[in-house]
């Protein structure tokens, strides 16, 4: 009799990290004078307990999903994209400009055009660090970080002057014409079809990595750059292509926020999604599992907002949890060891009581 084997071994590390983070979080909650049960249930209710909460969750998840995909793609090739923040802003700018300056186009043309512009903006910003690294040996971490700041400042300029809304005191552009606005997912909600685009993108990326020769070359380069070169892969070209795809994802993060959530480009609209994307990607690992880690972080953020009212904790508690999760994932051996020790400890206590 043939047994069906599990094709993929599930990596337990992310689950250990989440579990440990929850425990550490409970300790922090206790130290702040609250009850972990109260706080955690507030989180859950905040995210899932109401229509508003669910919407907030989807709103938070969308940019996290794109940014997570961006970093996950780069990680497949053995690189870490630290420039996601700048890339998403450039994507936002490109799509907003295409939306505002090309008026009078029909929606079926305008929306794809804006999306393409957003993808290009992100792709360009991701291309620069890797190109400089290959051509001139420049430290790609610093170039990516510098480009983040340059992008943010450039958008600040654009949003305050050329593209700024004259009638508003807030630093933002005009509203995008309806031809360049993404349709909403539910009536009377801010959530747009952007999240659907994200999920579709994740599936497409997963497909590319699994089923195409390009995906194979990227995976091989990430797993062993010398073995890849020995089997004929042009590793420089693959690295550039990977970063461009990564940039497309980050560009889309900004694009979807502009065209879907806010319908305009607002200065500073990203509270650090670029770096959160690293957390999402590191926890998720591959394009499809990134969907779930993005949902997790999105739910945490939405729930976290509920903490702002009535408790002395704030949504920043969620940021703290995020940081803990990243640290635990960064040292996978550690999480497993701690988890094992805890299990032994609890088993001993049980034995003593029993």
């Amino acid at each position, binding site marked *: 009799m043939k047994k069906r*084997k599990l*094709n993929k*071994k599930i990596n337990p590390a992310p689950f250990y990290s989440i579990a440990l983070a929850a425990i550490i979080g409970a300790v922090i909650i206790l130290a702040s004078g609250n009850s972990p049960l109260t706080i955690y249930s507030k989180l859950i209710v905040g995210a899932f307990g109401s229509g508003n909460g669910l919407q907030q969750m989807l709103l938070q998840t969308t940019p996290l999903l794109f940014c997570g995909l961006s970093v996950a793609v780069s990680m497949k090739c053995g690189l870490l994209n630290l420039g996601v923040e700048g890339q998403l802003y450039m994507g936002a700018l490109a799509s907003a400009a295409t939306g505002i300056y090309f008026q009078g186009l029909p929606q079926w043309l305008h929306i794809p055009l804006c999306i393409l512009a957003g993808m290009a903006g992100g792709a360009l910003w991701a291309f620069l660090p890797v190109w400089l690294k290959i051509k001139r040996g420049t430290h790609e971490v610093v170039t990516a970080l510098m480009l983040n700041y340059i992008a943010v400042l450039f958008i600040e300029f654009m949003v305050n002057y050329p593209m700024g809304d004259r009638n508003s005191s807030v630093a933002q552009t005009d509203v995008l014409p309806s031809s360049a606005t993404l349709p909403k997912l539910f009536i009377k909600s801010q959530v747009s079809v952007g999240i659907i685009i994200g999920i579709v993108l994740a599936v497409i990326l997963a497909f590319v990595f*699994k*089923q*195409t*020769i390009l995906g*194979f*070359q990227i*995976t*091989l380069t990430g*797993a*062993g750059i*010398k*073995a*890849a*070169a*020995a*089997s*004929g*892969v*042009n590793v420089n070209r693959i690295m550039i292509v990977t970063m461009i795809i990564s940039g497309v994802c980050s560009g889309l993060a900004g694009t979807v926020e502009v065209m879907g959530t806010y319908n305009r480009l607002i200065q500073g609209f990203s509270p650090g999604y670029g770096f959160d994307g690293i957390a999402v990607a590191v926890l998720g690992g591959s394009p499809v599992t990134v969907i779930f880690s993005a949902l997790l972080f999105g739910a945490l953020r939405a729930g976290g907002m509920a903490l702002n009212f009535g408790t002395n904790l704030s949504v920043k508690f969620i940021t703290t949890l995020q940081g803990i999760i990243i640290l635990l994932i960064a040292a996978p051996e550690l999480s497993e060891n701690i988890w094992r020790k805890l299990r032994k400890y609890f088993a001993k206590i049980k034995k003593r009581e029993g």
Partner: protein
Amino acid sequence: MEKGVEMRGISKAFGSNQANQAVDFYCNAREVVCLLGENGAGKSTLMKILYGQYKADCGEILLSGKSVDIQSPREAIKMGIQMVHQHFMLVPTLTVTDNVMIGKETKNHYFYDRRQARQVVRKLSEEYHLDIPEDKLVGELSVGEQQKVEIIKALYHGAQILILDEPTAVLTPQEVDELFKVISQLKDDGKTVIMITHKLKETMAISDRVYVMRQGKMAGQCLTENTTIDQLSHMMVGHKISKTEKERFYSDKPVVSLAHVSLKNHEKKEVLKDITLEIREKEILGIAGVEGNGQMELIEVLSALNTNWTGSILFNGTSIQGKKTARLLSEGLSCIHADRQTNGIAMELEVPYNFLMGFWQTDEYTTNLGLLNWQKIKMDSRELLEEYDVRPRDIDRKILEFSGGNQQKFVVGREMKRNPHFLIAAHPTRGVDIMGTSFIHEQLMKLKADGAGILLISSDLDELLELSDRIAVLYDGQVMECRQSSAYQMMELGRLMGGRACK
């Protein structure tokens, strides 16, 4: 008379590999001893035990008659034993002086007194005629000069016994002469020098005594003045029973022709010198030679991983100049690389991915839409595991979960399955058991009969003699000799591999 350093009955095993078996060794002050042998003979292991890097399974070490327990290199250094490794322990961005001083810096109160340090280094340099400018960055020195820095460092840290691991492997002939002058000086100064080498001529030139190791055992020991190169090569290579003559056949049509191919490495040293070779259809050309004499570079050049060569290389009649690896692979080249874990497989990926590594350059495993046909890939992967007896028969495992021997069988199988017109096989049976080895040999003969040309690089002379139609001996980047394998005498092969040309 008390012996300076004595090792008695040393045995050491790594898993199933008995690296040293009941080895006896001794050396005294004012002596140069050469430890001679091929790759895998056990010389490095023995010296690493002396240097404290490994611990012997049994046996003892005596210093000046007293039994000692050397737990770590730091203890060995304290006892005056120093090793100059093949891969230098030097920091290229620091000066010679700084490199020598690390760990035992000359101090002025709490500060590092560079002026005093420079004087100390200069004095040592002059005393032993090493002539190294103490302020130069190590990265700017030639390899020979870097080696001298290592010697100064060893002397500064108080070495009485210096172990040199294949010191001449990376040197030009002039640098070798200089090194030997230094070794003589060290000997006159009362030091002991142990030189690990495979080079016969140099052994005869510099040593007082020679130890020959073979397959983990001490094959012989003699005074240099009482022996000859022939005797040494005989001891090194041993009495091998030659197998019955196999039918040698090959066509006249060349698959790969190299003409006057030379290659310089990034330190501007010539690692391939004027190589002219031909591999014909239905031929196995064996390359004999100790590792490090140009084999790696030859492989890299032929597979387009290194394109800085001069000369002419023709593959299937056309020059490979300007062609990329992927192109050559799709034109019928296959390569079993020497370092499989770096070049042959991707450790963290599962079997099907590693299988595809050999085939993605063509559309053998893509569907009409250009997508990967995983069903076919998995099926053929399973078949490969079956055919080459790779265990466990589980294609869902990552390749790092397989033992070295099984990994090797996998790589060999993959490359053979590509039905190449030209196969480069570097150490194809390394780590493989007897059954697997004989199966691989069978496949190689089959491939040859089908019309392919095979370049076989191996440190196993038995294998070379059994499989090759012709054998070329590579020494120091040059082809020493190339003729029918039946025309070689065992001793002659050993001599050629050690660098001594015939007549």
